[in-house]
């Protein structure tokens, strides 16, 4: 039990949830099954332990939006606390883990249709479960972030720094503007927590991330194999890993292990458990509140989920040409940050998303697309029909759109999601 000087109860919840589940998974799941989940848990634990240890020492806690380039935390000796990923991973691990907090926020007057990821954090804050020293966010990827971070800033009165990220453009002008914003953000955090930025540590984190990215690219290549060597559950797990353990040795270790799992299976000419009948890409999010969906898809439906939004990366890793050239490094961070999952799809015109999906569908030999239309995401809801039409026109590929809240089972129950997928398969394919 950690005696925390500062409160980050959700990380404690996560830590205990993962340690208990890991122990169970490790003991009962048979060899070669759910290896990815096991590897994630094993590697996630030390990252959480480190955060809790630091919180016990009283180091500053910085709440952040998952859309911020995570490398910049490593300029400081601090605990980065990811707002959006935390409630969703808790909702995946604990059956009713976040509902209490969602209801807490609702009772305070929260509009039910705003993103549950931030709603969960609002509830936790209203319930006194999180104390922070600073909050940082880009002005993206969606209205939810723009609205919710104003709540955080004005309700808890913690210094909140916004890095403005331009909409529409994906060019030098936008990268330069955003890079300057990020530099100003680092300076502001530095003043708030009274630490000089340590760019050497940031570069180390970038190097870890770049290494992890290399393994991720290997995983991408492995996914091209038919049948896919990975279970569908890999996608929400990779989403959790990228958002909750950025810039760490453990992230590298995790991606390396995942890549090896794939390679081993491929060597044996074995796919994932279950027979692959259909290959699907998910341009948007995965369902978080019930991971059993993926096992059901794999084993009973024969549907492989090859991609979700948190798994396709359309950027190159940052190249450190000169460790002293901080401006160049920030420019690369900014260019990457503009193309981080969800920033890319939400800030740029829909053409980019359409092109990305067509490329993925062809490259990965896909049969259909599933769009999980998340209640919070109006930027996606507005164009999901459009995307469906374009994919049909370009590739003759059908799309299933399911309306839900990916972090709250009470909006669309998992039975209904299974039912809709089943009907789709029966009718269209």
């Amino acid at each position, binding site marked *: 039990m950690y005696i925390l000087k500062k409160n980050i109860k959700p990380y404690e919840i996560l830590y205990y949830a993962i340690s208990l589940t890991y122990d169970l998974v490790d003991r009962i799941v048979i060899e070669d099954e759910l290896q990815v989940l096991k590897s994630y848990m094993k590697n996630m634990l030390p990252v959480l332990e480190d955060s809790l240890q630091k919180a016990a020492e009283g180091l500053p806690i910085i709440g952040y939006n998952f859309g911020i380039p995570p490398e910049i935390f490593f300029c400081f000796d601090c605990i980065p606390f990811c707002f959006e990923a935390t409630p969703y991973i808790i909702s995946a691990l604990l059956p009713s883990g976040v509902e209490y907090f969602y209801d807490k926020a609702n009772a305070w007057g929260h509009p039910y249709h705003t993103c549950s990821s931030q709603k969960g954090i609002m509830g936790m804050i209203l319930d006194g479960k999180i104390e922070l020293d600073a909050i940082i966010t880009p002005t993206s990827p969606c209205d939810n972030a723009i609205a919710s971070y104003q709540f955080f800033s004005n309700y808890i009165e913690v210094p909140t720094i916004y890095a403005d990220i331009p909409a529409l453009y994906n060019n030098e002008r936008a990268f330069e503007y955003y890079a300057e914003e990020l530099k100003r953000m680092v300076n502001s955090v530095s003043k708030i927590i009274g630490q000089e930025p340590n760019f050497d540590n940031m570069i180390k984190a970038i190097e870890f991330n770049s290494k992890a990215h290399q393994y991720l690219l290997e995983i991408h290549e492995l996914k091209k194999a038919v049948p896919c060597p990975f279970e569908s559950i890999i996608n929400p797990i990779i989403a959790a890993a990228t958002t909750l353990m950025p810039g760490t040795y453990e992230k590298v270790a995790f991606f390396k292990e995942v890549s090896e799992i794939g390679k081993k299976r491929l060597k044996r000419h074995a796919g994932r458990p279950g027979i692959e009948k259909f290959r699907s890409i998910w341009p948007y999010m995965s369902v978080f509140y019930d991971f059993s969906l993926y096992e059901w898809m794999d084993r009973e439906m024969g549907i492989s989920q090859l991609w979700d939004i948190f798994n396709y990366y359309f950027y190159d890793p940052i190249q450190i040409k000169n460790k002293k050239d901080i401006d160049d490094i920030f420019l690369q961070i900014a260019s990457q940050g503009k193309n981080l999952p969800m920033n890319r799809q939400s800030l740029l015109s829909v053409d980019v998303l359409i092109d990305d999906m067509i490329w993925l569908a062809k490259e990965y030999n896909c049969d259909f697309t599933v769009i999980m239309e998340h209640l919070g995401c109006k930027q996606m809801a507005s164009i999901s029909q459009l995307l469906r039409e374009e994919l049909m026109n370009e590739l003759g590929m059908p799309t299933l759109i399911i309306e839900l809240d990916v972090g709250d089972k009470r*909006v669309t129950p998992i*039975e209904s999601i299974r039912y809709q997928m089943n009907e789709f398969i029966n009718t269209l394919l």
Partner: protein
Amino acid sequence: MANYLGIDIGSLTGKAVIIDDNNNIKAQKVIYVKKTPLKTVNVLLDSILPEIGIDDLSKITYCVGTGYGRRKIPLANETISEITCHGTGAHHVMPSLRTVIDIGGQDCKVIRLDENGNLKNFIMNEKCAAGTGRYLELMSETLNIPLEKLGPISLKTKSPVSLQSKCSLYAQFEVISLLGEGIKKPDIAAGINKAMAERVINLAEKVGIEEDITVSGGVAKNIGVVINMEKLLGIKFKKLPVDPQIIGALGAALISRKSFLKKNS
């Protein structure tokens, strides 16, 4: 002898109450609504007036209308919202009340009162059926048991199911699949009542809950919902000493007297 009349035309029932100069109830009536609000009013009057021995509208001193049909009551001297009328009526029969939760067929209101029975704050559900009597109607249809049995039958279980859906349509879907799985009706009914209670408490929390509390409206008759709400709040509700259904009309009658006296002072 004065006769102050309050008429409350709701979506399901019409209610009338007549009080005297001392705020004592002289007569009360509850009927199901007829085809039009006007018809409901006429039937109400036809049945309540003989009870106090009058057959002439001119013997009615003053009349206040409330409820959805309040603007369709020809003899009403003024109209007041059902929110205020409920508060006034409830405070009159129990001055210690600070919160009234009224769950009707189409909507749910939470009314906060000050120590004088004045309206302090209120909230009403948005359009959605979840958290209103309509939700229970839909569920009882799906379960195929009469609405009034939904409460008593739910007490027979020790293992209530947990219904997850917030949306009434999905909840129906869930109930159907639970029935398909062979889950017993009392278990499901208990789950329905619990879900209903959760929705109402969620709404109530938005305006804050202060004791003493009472529940009125048709759904107050469902013991299963009431018990669940009490459990969630850890509070015992006060039972009104009169039929909860007439509270709105009683409030209207009380306001009727007050208005008349004010106008003639």
